[in-house]
């Protein structure tokens, strides 16, 4: 059997090696990516629940994710995790440490974990993370968690791919939370106050409940608040119940299909830009002088590639 066919069949059978290879092939835009992505079963992808886990650094996202894995496994669900961390803008490298908290599940064949670096691209990572989610779904995962730090545009874009998103907060991180209020609280469907045994947790819960009420009035969409102590697994079962409740509401009112459509559109744009980038870069590198206004140059460049821009 040729290599690609083996990988495709391996993914469907849940073979860890094949799943790992398939995600790399897509992430690196290797030629075999086409065949792999074309082989995915839309029904399996449709059936997979995608939950975003976000929040400021140090809130306990990875620890909570690990506990969610444990609880989902207790419920006999095969589960995937895509853990996204930023690449260094200087070296392009990345230190991906989310696994440290999840190693307890390393030998469980029904837990698929993939660490992913943003690779400092303007977009791109959304496409790669989306593909990883679908490959995991193809391998039989019923739930996939996308974990990413809740700062920065690219991270927010990743979270927007999820069916629903839990925002993890913890007492004592006040400044980060202030900074994020405008942006990330908007995308949260569930507000998780983690480390709820620490001082300041009660005040944070009250704060977030008021945020939730305001959102309810403004958007007519319920935001749930729940407390956890992830390090001890407390509140995790209740959190999954909340996830299921929100999921049910979103399925009934069409929110899920709306979001999936939006995410799909967004991902197509992401991939289109990503796939054309090498050609654009080649054009730019060809012309050493590169005088003139950047926008006009960009229009010329696109015209040279046969793409007419409107304005």
């Amino acid at each position, binding site marked *: 059997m040729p290599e690609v066919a083996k990988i495709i069949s391996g993914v469907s059978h849940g073979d860890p090696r094949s799943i*790992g290879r398939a995600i790399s092939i897509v992430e690196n835009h290797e030629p075999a990516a086409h065949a792999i992505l074309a082989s995915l079963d839309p029904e399996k992808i449709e059936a997979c629940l995608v939950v975003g886990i976000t929040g400021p650094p140090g809130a306990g996202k990875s620890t909570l994710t690990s506990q969610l894995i444990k609880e989902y496994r207790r419920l006999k669900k095969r589960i995937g995790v895509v853990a996204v961390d930023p690449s260094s803008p200087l070296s392009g*490298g990345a230190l991906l440490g989310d696994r440290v908290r999840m190693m307890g599940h390393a*030998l469980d064949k029904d837990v698929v974990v993939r660490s992913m670096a943003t690779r400092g691209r303007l977009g791109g990572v959304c496409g790669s993370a989306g593909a990883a989610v679908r490959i995991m779904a193809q391998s039989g995962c019923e739930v996939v968690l996308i974990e990413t730090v809740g700062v920065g545009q690219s991270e927010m874009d990743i979270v927007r791919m999820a069916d629903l998103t839990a925002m993890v907060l913890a007492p004592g991180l006040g400044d980060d939370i202030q900074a994020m209020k405008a942006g990330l609280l908007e995308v949260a469907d569930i507000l998780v106050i983690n480390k709820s045994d620490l001082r300041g947790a009660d005040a944070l819960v009250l704060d977030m409940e008021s945020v939730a009420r305001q959102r309810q009035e403004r958007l007519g969409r319920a935001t749930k608040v729940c407390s956890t102590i992830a390090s001890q697994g407390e509140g995790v079962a209740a959190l999954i119940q909340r996830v299921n409740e929100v999921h049910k509401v979103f399925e009934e009112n069409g929110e899920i299909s709306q979001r999936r459509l939006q995410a799909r559109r967004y991902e197509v744009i992401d991939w289109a830009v990503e796939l054309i980038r090498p050609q654009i870069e080649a054009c730019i590198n060809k012309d050493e002088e590169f005088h003139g206004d950047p926008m006009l140059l960009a229009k010329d460049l696109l015209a040279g590639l046969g793409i007419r821009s409107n304005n």
Partner: protein
Amino acid sequence: MSKKYRVLIGKPGLDGHDRGAKVIAQALRDQGFEVIYTGIRRSPAEIAAAAVQEDVAAVGLSSLSGAHLRLFPAVVEELAKAGASDIAVVGGGVIPEEDIEALKEAGVREIFTPGATLEEVMNAFRDACQKNSR
């Protein structure tokens, strides 16, 4: 570096001395590698399973406890069992000169002992990744 090299750094066995592993992980990141770090006290099977899931080109193992003769080859074996013999294993730590031969025979590609420069270690990883052109 145009193609991104993914590597995994792990500490097998009951050994909490992770300074060395962290220095190597950070140096690799600064050289443009994507480094998955597993943390301390992992079993060889756990490290191999993580390496397979993450589809890394190479695994770096650190040991300062004296159990390298048992733990490093065990990771090589676990990778082979998972059909991932192509993933290179590189080791480092407090390792006596006379053990190096045995480790290499067991399939560990390179061994670094105290005094090795970061550059030598980086080159070994880069070399391992380049050879692993899947």
